[in-house]
């Protein structure tokens, strides 16, 4: 391939740019609830985000990456012209990144996931052909965009109801909070590690059976719980503060719990959204390396690393400011409901990551918040936001597609050396 090095360089650059954008903008949505409910300070949130976004992306980002890399486009259509796929993936990356930049600078509600899927489908339909898209897979993904917020809403509803039954609506909420919250902390550690382990950590040389995974997950749940219990012991309870609002001290314990769900949220976000940046990169790299559209090749670890580093870079250079802004605007959320929303959303996203389905973390979180609201747990929810999400669907998919088509023909015009098509 004549321009192989060019392709690799561009892919890495665009992928890094996209990952940077995710870190700069998208991470804020995952972290802001924790900052808003004052479970984390802004500095702690950045630290948590950096560590767990990285871990999520690196450890559990492989499945969704593989979907974006080879699950959407039927590569047999371009066997004779693998370069077309390279142009397409480069164009999709650039399109999604540019669209995100435009949209978020205007404050429009957009989803990175929707942008990249729209962009990939866009170039594939116009540049290769309608039959080159795995429409069944696209249908699954689109359905999951509807299902994931609903599922996480249900989860949040039931989590909050359980908290109400076990802790808040009892005669001694403080005692029950001390008693039951460690189990929720266990759940956070258990679910996250289980899904990650089940989907395999082969790329870091860890290959466990289901039974072993289960045991390790229980172990990591217990360790998480132990850390949580130690943290709860360190809280200073001041009965004076309960005069004005009787749940001030109970909320402090939920604050500890929310530190854990915040970690989970960052992990989940990293595991699902890193693929939006590195999925196309992975596709390009495997074509360049083998010269053909390989469907079986393993995902190179350095690509995952690229995405993870990009996200943390975005967070460090710009994302922390967005977290601060968004967090400041969320004042109505106390840790007891923030945690319910985060645990529900993180679980849903991690399951999607394990299944290899790219979903929108933010939409899932919005669904979870609505779930808590339906359980009568939140003072006021602005339903216009739900309408805006619908709008973001209608606008983002075609916008990503159109930009991607433009970039595709631009790149093809510059680099294409193959036969006329």
């Amino acid at each position, binding site marked *: 391939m004549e321009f192989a090095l060019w392709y690799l360089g561009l892919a890495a650059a665009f992928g890094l740019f996209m990952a940077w954008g995710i870190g700069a903008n998208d991470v804020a949505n995952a972290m802001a609830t924790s900052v808003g409910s004052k479970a984390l300070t802004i500095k702690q949130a950045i630290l948590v985000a950096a560590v767990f976004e990285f871990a999520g992306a690196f450890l559990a980002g492989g499945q969704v990456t593989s979907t974006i890399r080879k699950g959407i486009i039927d590569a047999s259509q371009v066997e004779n012209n693998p370069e077309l796929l390279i142009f397409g993936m480069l164009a999709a990356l650039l399109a999604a990144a540019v669209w995100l930049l435009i949209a978020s600078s205007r404050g429009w509600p957009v989803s990175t996931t929707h942008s990249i899927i729209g962009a990939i489908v866009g170039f594939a339909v116009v540049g290769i052909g309608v039959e080159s898209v795995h429409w069944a897979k696209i249908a699954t993904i689109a359905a999951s965009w509807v299902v994931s917020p609903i599922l996480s809403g249900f989860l949040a509803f039931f989590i909050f109801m359980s908290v109400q039954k076990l802790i808040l609506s009892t005669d001694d909420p403080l005692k029950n909070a001390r008693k039951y919250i460690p189990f929720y902390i266990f759940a956070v550690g258990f679910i996250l590690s289980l899904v990650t382990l089940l989907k395999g950590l082969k790329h870091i040389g860890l290959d466990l059976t289901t039974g072993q995974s289960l045991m390790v997950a229980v172990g990591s749940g217990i360790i998480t719980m132990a850390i949580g219990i130690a943290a709860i012991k360190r809280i200073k309870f001041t009965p004076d503060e309960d005069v004005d609002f009787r749940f001030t001290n109970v909320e402090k314990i939920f604050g500890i719990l929310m530190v854990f769900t915040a970690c989970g949220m960052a992990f989940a976000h990293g595991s699902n959204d890193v693929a939006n940046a590195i999925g196309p990169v992975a596709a390009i790299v495997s074509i360049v390396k083998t010269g053909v559209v390989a469907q079986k090749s393993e995902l190179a670890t350095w690509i995952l690393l690229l995405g993870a580093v990009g996200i943390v870079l975005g967070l460090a250079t710009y994302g922390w400011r967005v977290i601060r802004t968004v967090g400041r*605007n969320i004042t*109505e959320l106390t840790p007891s409901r923030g945690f319910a929303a985060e645990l529900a959303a993180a679980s849903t996203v991690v399951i999607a990551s394990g299944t290899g389905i790219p979903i929108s973390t*933010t939409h899932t979180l919005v669904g979870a918040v609505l779930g808590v609201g339906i359980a009568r747990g939140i*003072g006021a*929810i602005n339903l216009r936001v739900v309408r805006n999400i619908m709008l973001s669907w209608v606008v983002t998919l075609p916008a990503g597609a159109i930009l991607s088509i433009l970039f595709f023909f631009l790149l093809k015009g510059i680099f294409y050396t193959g036969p006329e098509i």
Partner: protein
Amino acid sequence: MTGSYLSGIFGSSPVRPLQEHMEKVVSCVSELIPFTDAVLAGDEQSRSRHHQNIIAMEKEADTLKKELRLQLPSSLFMPIDRRDVLEVLTMQDLVAGGARDVAGLISGRNMRFPESMSSNYMALVQRCNDACAQAYIAIKELDELIETGFGKTERERVGGLLHELDEIEQDTDEQQVVLRHELFKLEDELHPVNVMFLYKIIDNTGGIADRAQRVGSRLQLMLAR
């Protein structure tokens, strides 16, 4: 560049403004106590000062009411019915209005109370003030209600507070009966127009507790949903 629409999902809850409004209403009603003191002592200067305070606070409450009404778009999804919020608000506002009317009537007609009725009337004013304070305590529980997702324990707690409110209101009813009876005995000695207005003042004063109780009933409706 904010880049996030997540923060937009949290609308501003009407709970705090509702509580602030009631706080203002309670301080307006509590001004009736020094006001009545001044009336009974015949201290016109002090009476007029407290009357002005009552008018000012009633106005402030009115402004708060209008502000809250404006920030309750129907696109808000709340654990309490929007209509219930507005009705509690209206009822709270009527409590302050009641205090203003009583003070206005007494000041406007430069009224005096027969010596024998003074202490009983003062007791009625104080009990009405208790009723408002109790309604405010119940309204302050809205935070805890939402915190617990309207859990059973908390609903029962508020139910208990409202029960106390009912009892206070019943006290004021009985006090009114006694006052009317006293006034009836004095009717022949007093100017008929004064008698008429004294009945009206007893009525209006008792009406304050009545309205406070209705704030409670509206709150009860919110819980029942």
